[in-house]
């Protein structure tokens, strides 16, 4: 501040910077405040009340919504499910996407066809995906039913079984989003300089050595970015769960968001739902920022 000359405003006015700020800053600030900051603060405020959506917000209950939430076994299960999703995204989805990207990143017509096929699930709307897979897993009329009938075994009801329903959801989510990560990796791999790959080849590196010592280190920034998207995405999973299981059987397959929807919105416990929303927000923010700080920025500094 002290370094700035006293007539800086005049200078900004002269070179047009001030005009730019006056013209372009308010819309962004106003929109961001009205549609992001204010709802967040409002939700935080509502989370200390009991409110059904009707009438004035007057029933102050302190931290009761939060204490109920902390003690609620269904919320624990939802939290655990979200953690399972994050782990599955990192340890199943990303390695799968990486392996496929390494196989098909070179520009050939066959590879383009495969890229299209692998990317197709990502284009599908989430709700449609959920509905399609609920038909796949249907033990009476779906593909599962035809498979069990052809094999002559008893029908299997994957989504009705507490032990398998969430596994099915994880499968669908991995299936749906691996193509997206694969595309990020393909773009990164195509940007790897061929000079380096040729140099490795001349030095006598085998294929796997090229991958581990040359390609992977050079696309690490893309992998880290992918993991970041995977974590944030896994915390927000909602529209696949609702059509597939609707959180059932026995509320065992909720994610944090579907829990919020079912117990906060659908039952019109606005205060309680806001408390869940605040917890989700804090989880997203802390995981996003700490991941960015610990993993992504750490690399940049070195």
């Amino acid at each position, binding site marked *: 501040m002290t370094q700035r000359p006293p007539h800086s405003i005049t200078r900004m006015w002269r070179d047009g910077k001030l005009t730019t700020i006056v013209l372009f800053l308010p819309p962004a600030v106003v929109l961001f405040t009205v549609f992001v900051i204010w709802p967040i603060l409002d939700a935080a405020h509502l989370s200390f009340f009991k409110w059904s*959506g*009707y009438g004035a917000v007057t029933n102050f209950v302190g931290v009761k919504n939060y204490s109920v939430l902390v003690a609620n076994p269904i919320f624990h299960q939802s939290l655990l499910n979200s953690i399972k999703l994050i782990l599955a995204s990192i340890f199943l989805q990303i390695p799968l996407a990486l392996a496929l990207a390494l196989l098909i990143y070179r520009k050939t017509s066959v590879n383009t066809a495969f890229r299209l096929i692998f990317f197709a699930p990502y284009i599908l709307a989430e709700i449609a995906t959920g509905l399609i897979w609920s038909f796949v897993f249907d033990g009476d009329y779906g593909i599962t039913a035809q498979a069990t009938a052809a094999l002559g075994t008893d029908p299997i009801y994957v989504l*009705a079984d507490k032990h398998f329903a969430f596994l099915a959801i994880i499968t669908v989510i991995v299936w749906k989003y691996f193509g997206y990560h694969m595309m990020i990796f393909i773009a990164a791999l195509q940007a790897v300089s061929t000079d380096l790959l040729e140099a490795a080849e001349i030095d006598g590196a085998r294929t796997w050595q090229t991958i581990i010592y040359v390609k992977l280190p050079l696309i690490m920034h893309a992998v880290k970015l992918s993991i970041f998207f995977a974590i944030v995405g896994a915390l927000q999973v909602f529209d696949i769960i609702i059509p597939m*299981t*609707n959180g059932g059987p*026995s509320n065992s397959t909720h994610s944090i968001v579907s829990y919020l929807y079912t117990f906060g919105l*659908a039952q019109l416990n606005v205060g309680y739902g806001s408390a869940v929303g605040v917890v989700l927000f804090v989880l997203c923010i802390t995981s996003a920022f700490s991941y960015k700080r610990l993993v992504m920025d750490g690399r940049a500094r070195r």
Partner: protein
Amino acid sequence: MKPMLSCAALALVSLLATSAFAETVKILSIEPNVTSGREFYADAAKAFEAANPGVTIQFDYLDDTSFKSKLPTLLQSSTRPDAFYTWTGGVFHEQADAGVLKDISGELDSEFKATLAPIGLDAMTYKGKTYGVPMYAASVTLWYNKDLTDKAGVDPAKIKTWDDFLSAVKVIKAAGITPIIVGGKGKWPLAFYYGYLITRIVGTDGIVAANTGVGGGFASDNFVRAGAEFKRLTDLQPFQSGFMDTDNNKALGLFGDGKGAFELMGNFIVGTQRKNSTSGQGIAPDKLGFIPFPAVAGGRGNAADTFGGVNGWLVTKNASPLTVKWLKFLVNKENQEKSASLGLWLPIVKGTQSAIPDPGIRGVAELLTQAPHHQLYLDQAFGASVGSALNDAAAELATGDVDAKSAAAKVEDARQLR
């Protein structure tokens, strides 16, 4: 100057005239599950508009879930409809407490009230004030597929008590037939069993008392017993396999396809089991029968009490004065007979039941008129949060995840949080 003045006067008069006569009554409804329901409303609106020139009846439809979630915001805004569809019960009471409804007790003359079945008007009345007009009722009974019960050698007409029903289930299962079809994914079809058992064991008065916390609320011994009786049924594993992944539409189709002997369902099963079946034919009318829900030994409820819904229209604060006139027209005897003859629902106006073409639905309607009490679906009677806790409890009893005692405790926890 003069022609201009008269022009202005004419314009003013016409403006006044249009504002005096062009009146729109806005109605917000859920999407009727059969197209003939929509046509019925459209025809009634047309007839009313013809009799009252200048009035427009505007129907807006939303699907169930959006209707429920948008209503609170809508009712508190200035663009609220004049009247809207209601399932009555806890949510209605909350709306009345919030002051978004209009007390129309004074606008309903005794002559009009006398045409309605008492259960209908009762459901629209809260703390002595009437806020709306009932239109129809739904009643749950135990439906059966005669072919399958005959095959298993069970005579449903002889099932009078819960124990009779349990032994019938055992016999049917032993004959290699799925005893009961249920849409467990939605949870509420399972809660029909739990709710009906509560109605039989606790009684309708007991339910009202428990809802205010009397005698341990929903955790009292009688509620625990209802859960235990339900558990006796689920322990027999009477449902089709994969019932927790069967939504209600699919369950109705499975029943229509003859995949199971019984289904505890509302009167609308008659049409929907046909529509949702693979063949589109469903169970032949003479093969589809029903019995009242059995009595439970030692229960405090009357065995003739029915369980189901009452639906109608609630009038909002500052609604157009024509709203009540329109609603009275909509539920007049002629329109009620017409909707009954279309088989849409159980009409709420006395003496229109005979217009129901289907003998099964007519039977349910007659049972309803003889019932001393009509218990509202518990998830609607108790409001959203306790209602869902009850549905969750029923589902967890069915999957064997909780015992009767902790199921009742969970519902009571939700009641205390409400």
